[in-house]
C-alpha cells in the first residue's frame, strides 16, 4: 500500500489532485487538499494507483508524491 505525501511548502491549492483523486482527497475552504482519512499521509488503495500517479505527474507545483 502506498501513501500520498504533500509538500505543503510547495502546494498552492491549484486543486488538480482533489479533482483527480476525489476518493482520497477533499478540499478545504481555500482549495488545498484535505486527506479524507484524516491522516497526514493518506493511503492510496491499489485500484486508485494509476489515478494517483496521474495526480502526482500533473500537479503544477510538484507538491505531491507517492511513498511506500
Amino acid at each position, binding site marked *: 500500500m502506498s501513501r500520498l505525501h504533500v509538500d*505543503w*511548502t510547495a502546494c*498552492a*491549492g491549484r486543486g488538480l489532485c482533489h479533482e483527480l483523486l476525489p476518493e482520497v482527497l477533499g478540499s478545504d475552504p*481555500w482549495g488545498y487538499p484535505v486527506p479524507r482519512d484524516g491522516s*497526514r499521509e493518506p493511503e492510496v488503495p491499489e485500484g486508485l494507483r494509476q489515478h494517483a500517479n496521474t495526480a502526482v505527474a500533473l500537479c503544477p507545483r510538484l507538491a505531491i*508524491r507517492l511513498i511506500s
Partner: protein
Amino acid sequence: MKTLVARVLTAPRAEVPWQGGPGRLIALAQEAGLTGRGGAGFPAWRKLTEVATAHRPVVVANAAEGEPASSKDAELLARNPHLVLDGLQLAAEAVGAAKCHLYASRISAGHARHALDQRKDRWPVTIVEAPDLFVAGEESAVLSAVDGKRALPRDKPKLPVHQGFLVQNVETLAHLALIARHGPSWFRREGTRDEPGTFLATLSGAVANPGVHEAPFGIPLNELLQPAEPIQAVLVGGYHGRWVPWTSEPVSRPGAGVFVALAESVCGLDFSAQVLTYLAGQSARQCGPCLNGLPRIATLLTAVARRRATAGTVTDLNTLAGFVIGRGACRHPDGSARFLHSTLTTFDHEIAAHLRGTCRSRR
C-alpha cells in the same frame, strides 16, 4: 519560595566524563529515562540510538527558544554554558559525530562563544545564530539555518533523525552531561518513576516568583508557582500548550517548562485571542492551511472575546481547527489548534457568558 532543586543551573565545571567510545552514554540515558526538554518530551536515548547508526552524523545543540514565554535555554547558557558544551561533546562521542553545531539567539551565542574560548574540545563547535521567530527552533528550520539557509521549516518526507541529524535541546544536553558524571540512579533521585529528574521552568503572569527555576517532575503546581493574586488557570507548555486549572495536582508533561499564570481578574478568552493572534503572525507563510487558517481562527476567537460572536462562531472555530491539523511542513498549525481546543474547553463557561454579552473582566 520553597527551595527547589538545582542541578543543571548550578553544577560546577568539571572534566568532561568521556565514556571511552560511541554508544556507552546511550545506555545510561535509557536507564536514566532522560526525555527531550525542547517540548516534545521524546526519549533522548531513542534519538541517540537512531543517529548513531548513520554515516557521519551531525549534532546540533538547539537553544533557539522561539517561545516568547520561555527563557530557560537563555538562562542556562548564561549561567552554565560549560555544562551544555560538555553535553554536546558527550552526545558527539555517543553517536560518533562528524560535526557539532550550537544554534542560539545572538545573546546566548555570545555566552557560548565566551565559554568555547576557555575550552579545548575534541569536536570543534560551530555557532549559528538563530533569528527571533517562533518557528526558528523547529528541527528542520534549525537544520536549514545550520546549512546556511533561512531558518524556516522544510518539507520532510523523512525525519532528520533518520538522516543522521541529531537536534537536541541544550537543557537535554546539560542533563546528559550530569548523567555521564553521576550516573542514572543519581538522576532518578529527583522526579517520579515515569518522569525522572528535574526540568527548567519559566514562570510568568500572576506569580510572585517569575523567572527560571529548576524543579523535580511531579512537583505540585501550587508549589512551583507562588500566586501574586488569585489564579484561575495556568498555561502549561507555552503557546502550543494547554490550560490547566489552578490545583495542587503534580506537574506532568510540562513540555518546554513554560508556565503562564492567568489571574482570576483577567479574561481567559481575551488572553487566548492575543496568543492566537501572535501565533497567526508567526506562521512562516509557506503552507496554505496555516497561512489562511490561523489568521481566521485568531479573528473569530477575538470576536468571541469581544462579545461580538454567535454560537455559530464556536462551531466555525472547531471546523477551522480541523482544517489546519496535520497540514503543514511543521507542527505550528497543530500546536496552535491544540491551544485553541484547550481554550474552548477550559473557558466554555466564559464563552457562554460572552455569547450572552458579559465578561468577568468588565463586571
